[in-house]
């Protein structure tokens, strides 16, 4: 069993009971499969909002969704080391079955927290110098060409050199080259404490527990060129909780329809589709607009068109955008069609929905080639709105 960040794949499953969040599983019933390459398969079952079982099992039939990935990605996502969305989009996580069901699992468990172990002075030094290059602030070191040396004594101590040149930074063990400044400390623990903010450089120097050989100013500027070291043990001051204010904002509106859009909406009540025709270029506007944007003239002439026509193009929608006010999304997949109603020509199409069970039979048209013939299905209760037409359906 391989370990990633010191965590085994089975650790994730074994801790699921403890990490389960009933508030994130309200109303959920179902099984979720996990297929971790080279590690095995697990089935997580939730019944009526409680965690029923986590089992290592070869047969994943009956699961609402099966997620597959390698062990490192799986552990990484659960431990917060790997961005789940990125892994999914980059193809490292694959999901078969019900995507929406799988989505629910992310809310059902708290993040896996890596068990803290003691870090020795040596562990800290390796981590501190191991992260120097990634903490380097290249822009702050414009024009800088220097070497820092570190000579840290004691059983767990060691020597390092940090080269800064051409806005790049390189760390090597041992004192190399001719450092412009060597930071010397008799006890490496003092260095670790200084970096963790438990004591400060001035007092160490004053107390004679450390010295700087060479350019003292340069030594003091270390913090300008490197981001602060972050203690992996989360020592020191506890980080401030980031409060997020959740609020849905809406201001009620009363949208006027005006004489042009209004005439069109009134037409729908009487099962009439009215286009307005540009007096200059002759294009039919659906829905009608006050002006023809192309000709910059007012368009007052209405012509009844359709109601039947041919599909020129259909947007096959797999992902439904949420309604901005209610947050609700339309059931997918669905089809949004551009219908060239009888009496219209060229690109004067009318946009509406197609009957959901017919989306796979719709063919678009192009040039002389006509698309599927369709007719509107009228709403029995028509009020002068877009949904006076429920949708279009195939006209056989």
């Amino acid at each position, binding site marked *: 069993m391989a370990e990633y960040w010191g965590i085994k794949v089975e650790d994730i499953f074994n801790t699921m009971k403890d990490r389960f969040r009933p508030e994130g599983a309200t109303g959920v019933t179902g099984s979720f499969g996990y297929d971790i390459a080279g590690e095995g398969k697990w089935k997580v079952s939730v019944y009526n909002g409680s965690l029923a079982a986590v089992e290592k099992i070869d047969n994943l039939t009956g699961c609402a969704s099966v997620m597959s990935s390698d062990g490192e990605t799986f552990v990484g996502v659960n431990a917060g080391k790997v961005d789940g969305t990125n892994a999914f*989009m980059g193809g490292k996580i694959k999901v078969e079955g019900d995507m929406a069901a799988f989505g629910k699992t992310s809310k059902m468990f708290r993040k896996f927290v890596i068990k803290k172990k003691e870090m020795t002075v040596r562990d800290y030094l390796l981590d501190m110098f191991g992260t120097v290059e990634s903490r380097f602030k290249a822009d702050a070191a414009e024009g800088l060409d220097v070497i820092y040396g570190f000579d840290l004594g004691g059983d767990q101590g060691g020597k390092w050199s940090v080269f800064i040149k051409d806005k790049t930074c390189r760390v090597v063990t041992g004192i190399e080259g001719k450092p412009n400044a060597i930071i010397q400390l008799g006890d490496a623990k003092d260095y670790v404490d200084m970096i963790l903010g438990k004591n400060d450089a001035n007092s160490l120097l004053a107390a004679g527990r450390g010295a700087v050989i060479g350019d003292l100013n340069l030594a003091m500027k270390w913090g300008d060129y490197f981001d602060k070291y972050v203690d992996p043990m989360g020592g020191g001051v506890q980080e401030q909780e980031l409060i997020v204010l959740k609020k849905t904002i809406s201001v009620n509106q009363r949208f006027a329809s005006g004489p042009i859009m209004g005439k069109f909406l009134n037409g729908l009540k009487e099962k009439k589709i009215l286009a307005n025709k540009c007096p200059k270029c002759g294009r039919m506007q659906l829905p009608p607009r006050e002006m023809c944007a192309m000709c910059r003239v007012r368009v007052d002439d209405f012509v009844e068109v359709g109601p039947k026509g041919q599909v020129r193009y259909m947007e096959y929608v797999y992902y439904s955008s949420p309604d901005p006010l209610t947050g609700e999304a339309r059931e997918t997949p669905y089809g949004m069609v551009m219908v*060239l109603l009888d009496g219209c020509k060229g690109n004067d199409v009318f946009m509406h929905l197609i009957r959901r069970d017919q989306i796979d039979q719709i063919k678009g048209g192009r040039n002389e080639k006509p698309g599927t013939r369709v007719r509107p299905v009228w709403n029995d209760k028509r009020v002068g709105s877009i949904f006076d037409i429920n949708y279009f359906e195939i006209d056989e």
Partner: protein
Amino acid sequence: MAHRKKNRHVAIIGIGQTKFSSHREDVNQPEMIHEAVSLALKDAGLTMKDIECVIHGNMELFEMIHQPDLWHTLGTGAEGKDCIRITTGGTVGITLACASDNLVASGMYDIVMAIGFEKLQEGNTTGGITNMADPLWFRNLQTGALTGSKAYEFITEFGEDRSKRASLMYRVIMDKHAGLNPNAHRSFGLEFDQIDDLIKSSPKLIGDLKLIEMCSQSDGACCVIFACEKKAKELSKKPVWIRDHITVHREEIFQIFGYDDAYPVMQTHRFAAENLYKRNGITNPTDYFDVFEMYDPASWWAVDWLRDFFQLKGDEHIKLVEDKEIMIGGKIPVNPSGGVIASNPIGATALVRVAEAALQIRGDAGAHQIPKPVRHALASGFGGTLWTVLMMLEKELNW
């Protein structure tokens, strides 16, 4: 009277960008803006005292802040200064750059600071975009900024296999570029040998537009400082000159492609490029420009738009992608930054295009700096119902 000579020259002298990310809960809106402002001031070696006018832009309904420049004064530093707010949708960032150019060139201000930002995680973005549509009709039908029509049109013209591979090839190139840009939001580490797999495995959003091919929703801010010729020469070792810009909108209805060759649909991108190049005497844009920072909301659109922006014919635009000529190191690198497909804090996005183009001219783009000298750069913005803005940037004042 045709387009007139500029009253005076204007240069970019300072640039600041935040890291783009889906998680900026650690800062509020003015604080995030302040990060970009501080970086730009530092880059220019200026303080707020030097700034005469602040120009602010984003989309109000994405964060539901009405007249946000009022509150954001805390982060923009506009107190005591002239301050205006100009917006144009997705193009807003580059509109801020155009407006800054106009304000400085007019002689009314010597130094102007433009700030574009968005905190998309604080609002419902697809909902926000859907709100763009007329409330009586299209709002009930629209699908945010998603459409599969470009993929459909592309496939109709060039066949399914070549089209899908070109779109994914573009996507992988952008991901490779994003990997070199520390500010980029999304960088997956995609490889070219994954193309066939991604065509099959990436979830479909709408038609043949797949999740991997669509831009992200990011938080972030960008700040750019503009100065008149005199000030720019005094204050900056590497001023980047704004040569010209053009804005072209389309009608309210989102009807961007035709179903019948007998009724061709005029394209804003081609129209904008034609007019801009004509009045600046540019005959061969792929030869003239050394880099293009393009607002690429989805890879299908991106490949197609290369044809319009570069005035190419037939399948020349696909070949540029297939031959990797748009990669850093290629003939005409496109989006060395990783583009919008990698990072999209909408109100900042189009200003980032200008900022990144300017960084390339300065030679300060770091790991994503293109290896040859950059003298002429092009930046674009996209928004609304296929609105476009183009801006030309130059290293030398010699046109």
